């Protein structure tokens, strides 16, 4: 418990800042919705002259109109996911590497705690931090929608399904970060790794969306938890999400085993 509480304290500021920023971003995006919906209505009337496949190719197909709340929300949620992925990767690359980088490993590991307990405490703290952020931003999202929906209706259940997927989305980046930090000798700069991973995955998914990069798209959790499907059907796209699930399990198991045998070097 000792370690968990200490770790939570170190995340405190970060959790507050991320929660506020992501909430503000939701609010900002939803605030644009009323104006955007008007423009989009016009465009969609033009687009209706084109065949369905064509619209789909540009992410505008399906039953969700961009003028509707769910249609708009799935469109902006990608950017929320981008922010979440950066926070999660930051924590992932940070929590097991920090003691070695800042040379406090000698202190903590000469205490009577097992590595098992150390990893579990640190992992739980990082994940709790993400869950707190997630809870706050989910609330902020629902409030923003209520504030700016402009009389349009939406299915709150489907939105909640989408929001719930964030737990797994966060776990993907958290465990990927952990896996890398126990596989390399030392992580000098957490940011370099986390920005690379988060933006890399985002860009892969964005390019897949725009240009259709089939094979490569499958590695990106942005694709596994693509908002459109969940918000439209109110369930996960299991075919894709299971790739993330499998990756999360494998990386946790592998990281665990590597860390139990890891040599902790001094200065």
């Amino acid at each position: 418990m000792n370690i968990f509480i200490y770790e939570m304290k170190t995340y405190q500021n970060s959790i507050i800042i991320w929660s506020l920023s992501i909430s503000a971003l939701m609010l900002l995006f939803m605030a644009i919705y009323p104006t955007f919906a008007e423009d989009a209505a016009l465009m969609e009337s033009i687009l209706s002259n084109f065949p369905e496949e064509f619209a789909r190719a540009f992410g505008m197909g399906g039953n969700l109109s961009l003028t509707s709340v769910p249609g708009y929300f799935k469109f902006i949620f990608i950017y929320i996911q981008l922010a979440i992925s950066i926070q999660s990767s930051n924590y992932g690359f940070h929590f097991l590497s920090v003691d070695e980088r800042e040379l406090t490993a000698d202190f903590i590991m000469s205490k009577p705690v097992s590595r098992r307990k150390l990893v579990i405490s640190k992992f739980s703290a990082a994940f709790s931090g993400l869950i707190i952020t997630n809870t706050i931003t989910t609330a902020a999202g629902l409030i923003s929608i209520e504030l700016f929906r402009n009389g349009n209706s939406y299915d709150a259940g489907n939105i909640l399904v989408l929001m719930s997927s964030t737990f797994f989305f966060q776990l993907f980046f958290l465990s990927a970060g952990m896996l890398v930090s126990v596989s390399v000798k030392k992580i000098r700069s957490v940011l370099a790794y986390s920005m690379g991973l988060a933006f890399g995955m985002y860009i892969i998914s964005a390019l897949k969306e725009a240009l259709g990069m089939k094979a490569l798209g499958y590695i990106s959790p942005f694709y596994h938890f693509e908002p459109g499907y969940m918000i439209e059907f109110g369930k996960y796209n299991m075919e894709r999400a299971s790739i993330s699930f499998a990756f999360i399990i494998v990386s946790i198991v592998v990281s665990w085993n590597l860390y139990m045998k890891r040599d902790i070097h001094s200065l």
Partner: protein
Amino acid sequence: MNIVLRELRSNLKSLIIWSGCMATLILIMMMEFEAYYDNPEMAGLLDAMPQALMKAFSIAGPNLTTLIGFVSIASVYFYIMLGIFAVLLGSSIISKEERDKTAEFFLTLPISRTRAISAKLIAAVINCLLLTGVTAAALYSSAAPYNPDQEFLRFFRLLMSALFIIQMIFLSTGMCTAAVIKHYKKSGNYSVYTLLTAYIISVVISMDNKIDFLKYFTPFKYFEAQYIAASGELELKYLIISAVIIIAGFTGTYLIYPKRDLYI
């Protein structure tokens, strides 16, 4: 001179990884082009698309079936990737002496801090040039099978110049932030989140044209591929703004870093 070499060597691994990722991404992306290239059905449809609609969905290029159109779509992602590289490089090249606890060694060498910055700046610019070079080479070689015409080459040259300018903007931002903010962890965070904010702003702008004036705050809007393709040039006003930012950033670094206390 030996500082330049040392800096180049210490960043070599990162440069290789980034180059590898960029090249792979571009090659895979361009493999998709085959499906679009000269596809008359697609071309017909796209021609009929209203410009406003395409802009709204960041389908920046006029026509996906041409090289220019296809590359345009990916261009903003090139800006982001190389921007991240540059901002991280700028921030770490200044602050890493403190991070790696080598500051006491490094800054007690018989050289002035100004000279140290110059050497680091040269090394960083070389790094950015090399990464732009790799990107250009990957893009050019994967475009070659599709008979690139003069128009494409002109577009390509401008796009790569824009890419380099954007790298310089973020490099100077990163260096200046690291010079101003003493604590290395914070300075890295600040410069990276500046980039993230700039990107989000650029997204918001494309959704709501009432806030177009925010363009000036986000380098990602300075050299939009669509504009380059249509006009065949980089917009002068943004070239000037870029120059101002770059010069301000580097000057700030030169003025502030030599005077500040080290964080040890």
